[in-house]
């Protein structure tokens, strides 16, 4: 993985001292709340319902065991012994004290981590396929390019006071595991017919109040031109993006109101002046970063031991089937650690669990792990002969719930319990769904359920095969259901099922939807396919006749 050189470390250390001074000036009354706000946000610090919330970047989702142990340390020392993994490869701490945040950032810097631009109207953490470098279908490993973008976007002087936040995601496989089509910029790494590396660039995607699928603005931007092209898009957005209404300030609105063709012309006019100059990436510069992402030293091994283990335990077999997937290297598997155990808010991990996971990463997976878009963790390089021993350990620490990709593996925002924006709670609904489906999740099959506590859409409800959106109706919590969204291959926004549903009926309504699916599904047919075949109406009839 990428290791900081002296230059990177100096920058992060200087950032810590800068924020220490800003926090001190705020606490002494030398900075107003309004002036301090963007400064703290650009260091990941929100003021939430109960306490500040600190969001820490995990660049492109890659973590070392040492870094995870630092999260455990921070959770224990400064917070309430847990952290929350988000959909965009961050971890959030929900209870730090403002005056201690500079110390937390200093601890993070000691393991090459930071919270720079994890919030605010600037370029956020660049995310990527959590299976980069290990999945069999990969064209090019996107992580070196993510690191290059991380460096270019960090403390970018021109783009730190944008109209609104700006998110970039990169995928290097035909299967999109990074939700690139719902990002401000989505990049698909590809090769041309001569084998040159470049990027298809999508622009103007996003979730939130106005969910939009990104459109292709360029089919192939050569890798040397990546940064100059990004700079051209960002400058166009910075100049012309709306600043009169924060709900219309994202680039998706600019692209829609300008029209893709004209927007593209504007970008290309900027690019003509930037291209071929200082931002051009040399082969050597790219290679230097790529050297950090060389393939790991895999053993020559096979699945013989695994075959034997599979015959000894049905529960283990179930877990292997549900929570592991194939690796490009023979004899290795990718293992997902479910952060959706019953009785735990989705994405939450305790400090003890984090320490155990760090140990397991050291023992079984080259000391590295990944965070996924679905708020789980992955040990991506496990020998299949080690799976049985690893599974036993994970079971012990409530990390082996065999529900990856099922209805109880839901994406969920923190909701009204923590977030000052939320209209409705989501954690208790998630709990209700888990209770209802925990025994039948595997039988129900592959299904993505995503839930947000307000229309800002942090839980990505609009691209869930089942989406749940919390809304406020005269002080009461109601929930709007959508069906048929998707965030892989061809992203798609879900269709509204009907009018919002009262809180006490939401779990029953989900049950009705699953009932209709099971009643109609053909052998081995996923929820998404059944829905596409039979349409919304049967689901609608069942849910609204009943309630």
């Amino acid at each position, binding site marked *: 993985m990428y290791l900081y050189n002296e230059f990177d470390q*100096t920058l992060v250390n*200087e950032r810590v001292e*800068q924020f220490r001074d800003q926090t001190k000036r705020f606490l002494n009354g030398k900075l107003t709340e309004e002036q301090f706000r963007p400064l703290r946000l650009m260091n990941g610090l929100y003021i939430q319902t109960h306490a500040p919330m600190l969001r820490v970047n995990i660049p492109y989702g890659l973590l070392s065991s040492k870094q995870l142990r630092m999260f455990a340390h921070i959770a224990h020392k400064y917070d309430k012994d847990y952290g929350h993994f988000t959909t965009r490869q961050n971890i959030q701490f929900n209870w730090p004290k403002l005056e201690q945040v500079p110390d937390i950032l200093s601890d993070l810097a000691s393991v090459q981590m930071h919270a720079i631009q994890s919030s605010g*109207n600037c370029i956020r953490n660049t995310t990527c396929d959590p299976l980069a470098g290990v999945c069999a279908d990969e064209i090019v490993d996107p992580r070196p390019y993510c690191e290059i973008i991380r460096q270019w976007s960090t*403390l970018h*002087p*021109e783009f730190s*006071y944008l109209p609104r936040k700006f998110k970039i995601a990169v995928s290097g496989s035909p299967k999109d595991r990074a939700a690139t089509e719902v990002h401000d910029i989505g990049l698909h790494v590809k090769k041309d017919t001569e084998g040159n590396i470049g990027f298809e660039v999508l622009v103007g995607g996003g979730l939130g109040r106005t969910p939009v699928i990104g459109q292709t603005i360029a089919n192939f931007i050569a890798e040397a031109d990546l940064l100059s092209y990004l700079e051209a898009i960002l400058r166009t957005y910075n*100049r012309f993006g709306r*600043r009169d209404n924060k709900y219309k300030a994202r680039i998706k609105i600019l692209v829609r109101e300008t029209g893709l063709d004209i927007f593209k012309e504007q970008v290309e006019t900027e690019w003509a002046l930037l291209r071929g100059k200082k931002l051009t990436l040399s082969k050597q510069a790219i290679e230097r970063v790529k050297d950090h992402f060389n393939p790991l030293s895999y053993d020559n091994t096979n699945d013989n031991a695994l075959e034997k283990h599979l015959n000894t335990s049905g529960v283990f077999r179930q877990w292997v089937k549900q929570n592991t997937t194939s690796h490009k290297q023979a004899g290795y598997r990718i293992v997902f650690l479910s952060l959706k155990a019953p009785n735990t808010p989705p994405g939450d991990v305790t400090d003890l669990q984090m320490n155990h996971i760090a140990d397991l990463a050291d023992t079984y997976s080259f000391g590295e792990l990944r965070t996924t878009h679905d708020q789980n963790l992955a040990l991506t390089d496990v020998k299949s002969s080690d799976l049985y021993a690893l599974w036993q350990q994970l079971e012990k620490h409530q990390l082996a719930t065999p529900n990856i990709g099922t209805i109880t593996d839901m994406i969920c925002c923190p909701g009204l319990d923590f977030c000052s924006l939320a209209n409705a709670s989501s954690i208790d609904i998630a709990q209700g769904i888990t209770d209802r489906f925990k025994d039948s999740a595997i039988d129900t099959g592959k299904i993505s359920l995503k839930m947000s506590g307000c229309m800002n859409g942090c839980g990505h409800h609009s691209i869930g095969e089942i989406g749940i959106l919390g809304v406020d109706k005269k002080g009461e919590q109601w929930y709007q259901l959508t069906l048929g969204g998707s965030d892989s291959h061809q992203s798609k926004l879900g269709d509204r099922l009907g009018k919002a549903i009262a809180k006490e009926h939401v779990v029953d309504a989900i049950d009705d939807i699953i009932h209709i699916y099971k009643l109609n599904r053909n052998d081995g047919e996923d929820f998404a396919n059944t829905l596409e075949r039979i349409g919304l109406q049967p689901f609608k009839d069942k849910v609204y006749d009943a309630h």
Partner: protein
Amino acid sequence: MTLIKNNSVSGDAWHHHIAEQGLPTNHDIVSLAYWLENKTTLIKSGLILGLLVDGNEDFETIEGELTHFSLIAINFPTFADGRGYSLAKSLREKSNYAHEIRAVGDILPDQALYLTRVGFDALELPTKEHAGLALDKLSEYSVFYQPEIA
């Protein structure tokens, strides 16, 4: 008002022209609207002038006027409006504007470094204390990922 020029507190040879108080004199900074209205007269006068524009002003509008001015002042209506950064950078890199580019309006000492990184060489801060702090902030970082301004 305290001026920082080329990374130190500096005296100010320039004045902001107020249209109601009569014709400009040498080293006055005139607004874009005033300039466009009185362009012919002002060119004839041979005065050394600066131009004040808002950060959201069209680059294309300003571009043609640059040769008449020895200073461009870019106004920040609020510190959160980042358009002035792109405008300054465009003036330096697209138009190769070599004279003073000054940041005026709602700018915070904490923004001083980014402003100088995009091509501002002068900053108008509200007080001496703000200017002192801004100077401290200019040396907060010793390393940058982005290239220097051309």
